[in-house]
């Protein structure tokens, strides 16, 4: 694919992620932090987010499987996940965490388990989309092009 085509695809794909609510304005903050002195910033933060989230989701699964659920612990994990998803602009995941925390407060195990499923689903979706986006970025750069951030004004 030509660079121009890839760039166009990148713009369209990014816009669709915003439109569909996978990402919010905070993600643009990350993109703005990426520049010549920090060319892989988005990829780095996103990959740290994946690492962190996977650990949290596995901790959450374990905690909710216990006979006697420690809701404080569960809430602490969800709080972390909410914080990091909010910081990178992973909107659906963040919103799922907000709902999750109310069930923690109510000490509602079933509610929490449903939320966990929802979070996992949305996390998995945003992960694959972000991976695709970053792959596309890497292809553009490898082909000598630049990422057309300025075309994201919408």
């Amino acid at each position, binding site marked *: 694919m030509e660079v121009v085509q890839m760039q166009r695809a990148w713009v369209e794909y990014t816009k669709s992620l915003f439109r569909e609510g996978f990402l*919010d304005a905070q993600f*643009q903050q990350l993109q*703005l932090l990426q520049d010549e002195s920090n060319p892989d910033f988005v990829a780095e933060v996103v990959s740290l987010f994946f690492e962190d989230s996977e650990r949290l989701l596995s901790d959450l699964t374990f905690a909710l499987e216990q006979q006697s659920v420690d809701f404080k612990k569960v809430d602490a994990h969800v709080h972390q996940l909410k914080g990091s998803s909010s910081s990178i602009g992973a909107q659906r995941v963040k919103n799922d965490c907000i709902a999750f925390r109310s069930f923690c407060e109510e000490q509602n195990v079933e509610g929490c388990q449903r939320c966990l499923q929802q979070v996992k689903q949305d996390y998995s979706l945003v992960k694959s989309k972000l991976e695709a986006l970053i792959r596309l970025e890497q292809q553009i750069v490898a082909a000598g092009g630049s990422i057309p951030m300025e075309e994201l004004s919408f």
Partner: protein
Amino acid sequence: MSYRIHVYGKAERKHQKSSADQSTTNEPKEGKPTSSSRSSSDRKSFHSTKYSEGPYPNHLPSNEPQTPVKNGNTMDGDQGEEPEVPGTTVWLCCDVYDTGIGIPDNALPTLFKKYMQVSADHARKYGGTGLGLAICKQLVELMGGRLTVSSKVKCGSTFTFVLPYKVSSTCDSSDDPDDLSEMADNDAPLEDETAGFFHNSPILNGFSEDSCSFPSGNVRLKETTSVEDACSMVEVAETLSEPESSFSHSPDRDNENVVCRRKQCLDDTKSKIPNGTKNCNNHKEVSGDPPGSCQEQEKSATSSQCTSSSIPQEPESKPKPKILLVEDNKINVMVTKSMMKQLGHTMDVVNNGVEAVRAVQSCSYDLILMDVCMPVMNGLQATQLIRSFEETGNWDAAFKAGIEPCAPSSASVLDGQSSIHYHKRIPIIAMTANALSESAEECYANGMDSFVSKPVTFQKIKECLEQYLP
């Protein structure tokens, strides 16, 4: 958010007080609005705007009788008292307007009061302290002006202030629009912060040899002045009846203070224009918060307290400020660090309240960004302990909380002074997730100076630095 500035003056002077050698216009008490509000017909407005008439009360930041005004539209600051000064005075009128969530009528009467926000949960939703407008109002009134607001819910708000300026008898006037566009294209030299404000004002003069002292701090006029504004400035220059068109600010007393304040005042309004950073071509206010006028005004006004930090050229010899970030979430650390780096700062990072106390024990910081919810010890408690040290000169409270002091370093902190000496208060900014447990009141009660709501954005960090780092 945008702003525009227009100037209008009186064609006829009303009878002046006889204190002819009193060149000041800005005795604070004279500047306060009184009950005899002037109608707009007394003023020659060079930049008139169409209004829709309406019975909505104008909000005047005082308890004066209301005058009817147009709601839902921007308006010139036509109302208000003119100071009685010898010579000719013109009014500089600045509108700062946005297309945000607007302000309901019932909130207007208390809008300018300290700590008031539109609703009880405003801070939780949008941040802010409720101090911004009160500060703006005070500043404007101290300068002999008035601050008013016009708003329509869901449409936006316009804040207008008017300030009186005496027209001097000497000037290099130039109505040449080319000069104005030249001005707009130039980065005005902005370092002249203490002298000659509104002297050879670029708005009316084009450029003179002297440094253009339009007090706008680090905001570049070219980025914020629209073509429309430039045209209106031309219009102003051409229609000004007086041959003299340069301004010199009349009050001789409190010159420097007033300069700084005005600069900051304008700085405030402009700092909200989202184009002020080197790296951001398309940088929008992307915090995701609605650009509600309350929040915006508060945020921009809080930066009114910054002084020279708004000057782009800082002396090289100034030591780098030491900043401490207390945050347990790795992603937040990475994002915040990167934002700081873009602003030219590095930070020390620790992950909980205990480590924060230890860091302060061993090092002198100029600013602390403190996450509230953390394991081991949260930000509220850590702040309490730091404040206790600042007040008492010892770390007893921390010791009681289980933090062993590091003996050699506390000695170095005290630097051979006795413990009753004053310890500089470090600005501590809470980073809150806006949970109910992290309310503004709780932050302040525990000794925090301000808070930033998460997720942290570049703009929030920037404003924080401008306000709290000298």
